């Protein structure tokens, strides 16, 4: 196997594949080496200040090559994450990215302050200003360059470790949001969270989801995410982590050639638990055939 390790700023990962937030669980049986052996890091489910029940009603819906979800940030809150989850995750041998979901300023600050003392156990903080599945906060920060900049600054002034910002594809001007995040001190950009989609229950004559719209992910959205990675990579100088629909080594390479240093994968795993392994194998074969020593040599080559 070729050397697949990558660096995202100061963060070293053994492969360019990170499991995206909300698509992996804390249950011990999911952390076996044969499942995560080819994964560079795992993002936690979104963490909010308080515990959240998440959304009622149907939460997942299949679409052609895609998935709509309306989980609504269900999680046990920052205190439980720091006090219970993190200690459990320790010793499982996989780097953890803490996905911190912006709701309001006070909550964000408290979450960061809770994380600072355990920063040595967290590979990076992923600031989530992009969840489309809650009514207030989150995505309404990420669509605006000014608000994104404010949110990033708030974290940056308290958090000295690696700081990733997970953008929303709903931003009318994603380049401006990316630049604002960079100028406010982000170390990397995750491009991007889910797209805004919808499904109809034609039998019931009403929208499938209680909140009507839902987050859209999976292979269907790949051409959109790739375009977004291309756009944002042209506007910033910090590393980019591509996210949205990656399901093959060709997808990963496409993102990398467009300017991403690594990718996050989510929905594809639901279909194939061994996807990270197949991606690594395909990538490795490609690199050996093409005489590529490090993935970094390929970053942005198509630009």
């Amino acid at each position, binding site marked *: 196997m070729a050397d697949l390790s990558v660096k995202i700023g100061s963060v070293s990962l053994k492969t360019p594949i990170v499991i995206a937030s909300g698509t992996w669980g804390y249950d011990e049986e999911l952390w076996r080496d044969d499942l995560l052996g080819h994964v560079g890091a795992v993002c936690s489910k979104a963490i909010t200040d308080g515990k959240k029940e998440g959304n009622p009603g149907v939460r997942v819906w*299949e679409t052609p090559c895609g998935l709509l979800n309306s989980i609504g940030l269900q999680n046990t809150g920052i205190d439980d994450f720091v006090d219970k989850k993190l200690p459990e995750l320790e010793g499982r041998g996989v780097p953890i990215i803490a996905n911190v979901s912006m709701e309001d300023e006070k909550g964000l600050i408290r979450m960061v302050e809770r994380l600072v003392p355990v920063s040595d156990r967290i590979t990076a903080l992923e600031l989530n200003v992009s969840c489309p599945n809650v009514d207030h906060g989150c995505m309404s920060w990420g669509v605006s360059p000014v608000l994104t900049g404010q949110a990033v600054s708030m974290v940056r002034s308290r958090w000295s470790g690696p700081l990733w910002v997970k953008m929303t594809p709903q931003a009318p001007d994603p380049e401006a949001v990316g630049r604002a995040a960079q100028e406010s001190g982000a170390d990397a950009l995750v491009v991007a969270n889910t797209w805004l989609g919808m499904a109809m229950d034609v039998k019931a004559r009403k929208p499938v989801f209680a909140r009507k719209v839902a987050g859209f992910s999976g292979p269907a959205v790949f051409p959109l995410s790739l375009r977004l990675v291309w756009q944002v990579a042209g506007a910033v100088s910090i590393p980019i982590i591509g996210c949205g629909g990656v399901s093959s080594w060709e997808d990963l390479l496409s993102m990398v050639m467009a300017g991403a240093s690594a990718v996050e994968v989510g929905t594809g795993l639901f279909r194939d638990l061994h996807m990270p392994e197949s991606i690594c194998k395909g990538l490795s074969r490609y690199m050996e055939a093409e005489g590529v020593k490090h993935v970094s040599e390929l970053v942005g080559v198509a630009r």
Partner: protein
Amino acid sequence: MGRGVDDYSAVLTSVELIGEDVVYLRARCPELACEVEPGQFILLRDPAWGLDPLLMRPFAVAGVIGDDIEILLQVVGRGTEMLAQRKPGDPLVVRGPMGRGFSKPSSSPVYVAGTLGSAPLLFARDRFGAGRFVLGVPNGRWESFVLWLKRRCPELEVFSDDGSLGSKGNSLKGLSPDEDVSVMACGPGPMMAAMANMGLKDCQVSMESRMACGIGACSGCVIETSSGKKRVCADGPVFDLQEVVWNG
């Protein structure tokens, strides 16, 4: 009773039409067959599909024969339709064994099934022994399914809504909260809600819900319980009847 959480290649060894739109599948998958417990389920995908349908489909394990697992599959949409058309020798991708199954009954078992809900209960009966086995079906279109089930489970008591098969009416009539039995049930929501209303004390129910991952990763399949939202795929699919909030 562990969750395996892995994807395996299996081979279909038998495909049999056992009712209107109901197919019996047998698939060779030794890794699963030796591990799976009654009430656990698996997810299926056809490797010949492209990326659509995207997600695997969940099915209860209806029994184990040597290296093979048994499944009863009702065609209700595109995924099940495509799966039902497969032939012996065709490959399948199987994920499992998934979820927490039935606990060993503490007194004599009673099985209560609505149509396809009989699948996990057949497996439970194989392991925990025969007892009353009550089946509710809507109408006479279920005749061949009922005949098939009866060969497998001669003590089957059949109820149908319109009286065209077995006794007319509600399959729950014969149940009483005072009997010292361990009930295991699987069927449509209203049937199980009615059981909850009867106040059955020792009753385990196997639940269904739309799933994306099936491994406890996405929180997509939660139901409401007295202790908050729980994932059908990882915390269930078998729950205590009284734990489930039926209007959640």
